[in-house]
């Protein structure tokens, strides 16, 4: 709830803040406080109120360039704040009839807002402002701009401003420079008052062109009709596009100038224009005043008038055509030679000059970059191929290992069956014994407890066997871990003990101490041992009268571990020893032959070595060396 008391308090606070600000500003400006700076003046004097009278849509490129420059120039150099009041009368779409209503509205609108200055853009706005200034903005002066030099207008009283040139001559000269054979000129214009005003101006100028051209006027047409006409022009023709704010259909071309874009893109010959803001939208170019320069000139005049200069004493200045401009992509579009463009013309949208000035250096630099890229790609590709090859090797070794394990099944099946059937047999008998006793009524709780405990432990035993075997037969990924050689060798021997017993061969392990860990796959290491031991078993089992023993020794050696599998079988001939690790080599009838080959693959994948030595006095020793982790 607001009370008179709080309002008073808020008023006091605001006043106190203002006083504080004023004191601070005065303190800062102490040396020259008697002559207020423009900056300090902003806060002290009332702003100048300026009406911006626009003809049509302020977002036309020409309006943007001009008004932006005008407002910046006026505001930046002004000793007071400038407050703008934009008004659009839009004579393009609302001509004549409602003018009285607009005036009435504006009179009411500005009844309590005194206006210092009216800036009128274009001749239609200027005429409107001059007609109704006394009624709407009684004390205001008028500054005009956006009016073409030579157009039909009368300078009213208390008026100052700038006009701009319509450089038809310069524009046509450009066309003749790039198309030396030009004989005909097709002039495009729209149907609005503004379009016609420009057209009239242009016609006056074209009549004086020397040497004369054959002039055709494409007026009173729709944009589609104009496009069709210009699309069929011949080599010696040129198009001069003036303006087409509205075409014969009454279609108004908005700020994006679709009519211009359509006509220019259809034209079979170069399209010229005397208006700068049309360049870059498909036309080749032309000679035009700069609209930002024009706007700045108007802004300066406006400031002078606001500061008290009598407008009637200011001469009307015309902003001349600055220079000709040519859109570089348009040159290419009509296949025109750049060398024919007059030197005074600026090339717009041209690719960066660096390409011209430093062509060789850039080519060399680019070549170096390309070479480097190629080199990098090659290295990447090589690296990738190497990784793929490694992956394939691992996969291949894993596959071979899998096949090798399948081939070992024969040797291991007996062991598998025995190891599993032992506990399963015990379980069955225990269960059936309990059943018999139950039916006989002789099953005491103690007895049952005893039986169940036995069943449980046998069950665990069976599942342990299955786990170990499943691990051995599973196709494993290459996932190296730290492995303890002795326990893996022991596990491997457990798998082959039955085979050894069946063949009546004694396995004698001798485990070394202080073994370092090695990096690898435990199952693959087991496979190596199984393969070597099975080979050794077969070596001694096949012949009679031999010492039926296979010795398996492990030892810590420099930088790693050594595993030796020794038998006193028939041994190997020197020739066989040389081919030993080839994948097809075998001395066994039922073997698949890649036992030792897979052994070597696995060992080498573990960065180790495997080799054969004759045993003294007879038989063979297979030795495996594997590097310790970190060795």
């Amino acid at each position: 709830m607001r009370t008179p008391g709080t309002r008073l308090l808020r008023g006091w606070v605001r006043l106190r803040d203002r006083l504080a600000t004023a004191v601070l500003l005065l303190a800062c400006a102490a040396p020259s406080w008697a002559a207020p700076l423009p900056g300090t003046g902003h806060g002290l004097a009332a702003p100048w109120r300026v009406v911006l009278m626009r003809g049509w849509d302020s977002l036309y490129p020409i309006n943007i360039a001009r008004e932006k420059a005008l407002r910046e120039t006026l505001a930046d150099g002004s000793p007071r704040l400038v407050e703008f009041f934009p008004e659009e009368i839009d004579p393009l779409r609302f001509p004549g009839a409602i003018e009285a209503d607009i005036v009435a509205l504006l009179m009411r609108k500005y009844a309590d807002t005194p206006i210092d200055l009216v800036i009128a853009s274009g001749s239609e706005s200027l005429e409107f402002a001059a007609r109704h200034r006394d009624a709407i903005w009684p004390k205001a002066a008028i500054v005009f701009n956006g009016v073409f030099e030579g157009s039909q207008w009368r300078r009213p009283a208390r008026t100052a401003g700038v006009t701009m040139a319509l450089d038809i001559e310069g524009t046509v000269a450009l066309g003749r420079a790039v198309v030396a054979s030009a004989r005909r000129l097709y002039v495009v214009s729209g149907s609005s008052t503004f379009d016609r005003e420009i057209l009239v101006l242009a016609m006056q100028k074209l009549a004086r062109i020397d040497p004369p051209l054959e002039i055709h006027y494409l007026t009173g047409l729709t944009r589609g009709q104009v496009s069709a006409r210009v699309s069929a022009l011949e080599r010696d023709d040129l198009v001069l596009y003036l303006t087409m704010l509205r075409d014969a259909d009454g279609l108004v071309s908005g700020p994006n100038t679709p009519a211009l874009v359509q006509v220019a893109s259809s034209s079979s010959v170069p399209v010229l224009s005397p208006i700068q803001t049309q360049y870059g939208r498909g036309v080749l170019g032309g000679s035009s005043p700069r609209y930002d320069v024009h706007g700045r000139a108007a802004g300066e005049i406006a400031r002078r008038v606001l500061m008290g200069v009598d407008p009637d004493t200011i001469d009307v200045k015309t902003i001349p055509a600055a220079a000709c401009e040519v859109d570089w992509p348009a040159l290419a579009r009509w296949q025109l030679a750049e060398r024919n463009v007059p030197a005074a013309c600026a090339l717009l949208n041209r690719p960066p000059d660096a390409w011209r000035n430093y062509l060789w250096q850039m080519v060399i630099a680019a070549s170096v970059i390309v070479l480097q890229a190629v080199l990098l790609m090659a290295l990447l590709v090589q690296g990738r191929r190497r990784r793929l090859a490694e992956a394939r090797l691992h996969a291949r070794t894993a596959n071979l290992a899998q096949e090798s394990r399948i081939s070992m099944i024969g040797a291991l099946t007996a062991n598998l069956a025995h190891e599993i059937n032992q506990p399963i047999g015990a379980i069955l008998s225990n269960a059936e014994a309990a059943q018999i006793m139950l039916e006989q009524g002789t099953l005491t709780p103690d007895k049952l407890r005893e039986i169940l405990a036995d069943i449980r432990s046998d069950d665990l035993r069976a599942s342990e066997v299955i786990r170990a075997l499943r691990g051995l037969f599973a196709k494993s990924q290459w996932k190296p871990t730290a492995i303890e050689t002795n326990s893996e060798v022991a596990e491997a021997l457990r798998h082959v003990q039955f085979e050894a017993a069946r063949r009546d061969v004694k396995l004698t392990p001798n485990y070394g101490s202080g073994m370092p860990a090695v990096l690898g796959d435990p199952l693959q290491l087991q496979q190596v041992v199984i393969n070597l031991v099975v080979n050794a078993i077969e070596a001694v089992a096949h012949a009679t009268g031999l010492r039926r023993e296979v010795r398996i020794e492990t030892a810590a050696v420099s930088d790693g571990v050594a595993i030796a599998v020794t038998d006193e079988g028939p041994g190997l001939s020197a020739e066989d020893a040389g081919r030993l690790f080839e994948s097809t080599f075998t001395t066994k009838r039922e073997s698949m032959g890649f036992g030792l080959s897979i052994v070597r693959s696995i060992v080498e994948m573990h960065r180790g070595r495997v080799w054969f030595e004759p045993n003294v006095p007879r038989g063979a020793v297979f030795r495996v060396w594997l590097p310790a982790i970190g060795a």
Partner: protein
Amino acid sequence: MSAPVAVPGVVHVVDDDRAFRTAIGRVLTAAGHRPRLYASATEYLACDDSDGPACLIVDLRMPGTNGLDLQAALAAREESHPVIFLSGHGDVPSTVRAMRNGALDFLTKPVPTVVLLEAIRVALERDIERKQRTSQLAEIKRRYASLTPRERQVMSGVVAGRLNKQICYALHSAERTVKTHRARVMEKMAVSSVAELVRRAEELASAGVTLEPIPEA
């Protein structure tokens, strides 16, 4: 399953796997047999095996002396009980060898109790028969041993189907004397016909006893 066994007997279980041994022991006890458990062949061979009827359940694969070795050792004995092999995994060569050497049955673990008990029943019956045959043979041998040398010669002649006259001639004896010997033989061998005597002679031959030959006429 719980029906009382036809012939209870002593079952010797030879298996190195303690858990399996215990389980088999339980089921045999429940079925009314008297199991004796041994961890190795050597242990069994060292034990007193006088009770009967009996049979053996032997694991094929054992450290040291295996099942087949045990079978061979038993075959060398004068008397031995039927052997049932029980194995976790029987490969073909081992099975063939075991059966050829007279194994009664070859079972694989896990063995259903019905199957095991049936095998044991057959084995025990076979053992009883064997025992009976053994004691019969011993009786026959004892009786044969009680014959005088002359009586044995007469017995060989009768078994060979010779007539009394031919025997007289071969032994240079009177026919009356031969008839007396012949009656003694029939009496001592406890037979009432020549056919029976021939059977006794065959049994003696099969037991390795060579009859006293009769000189050629």
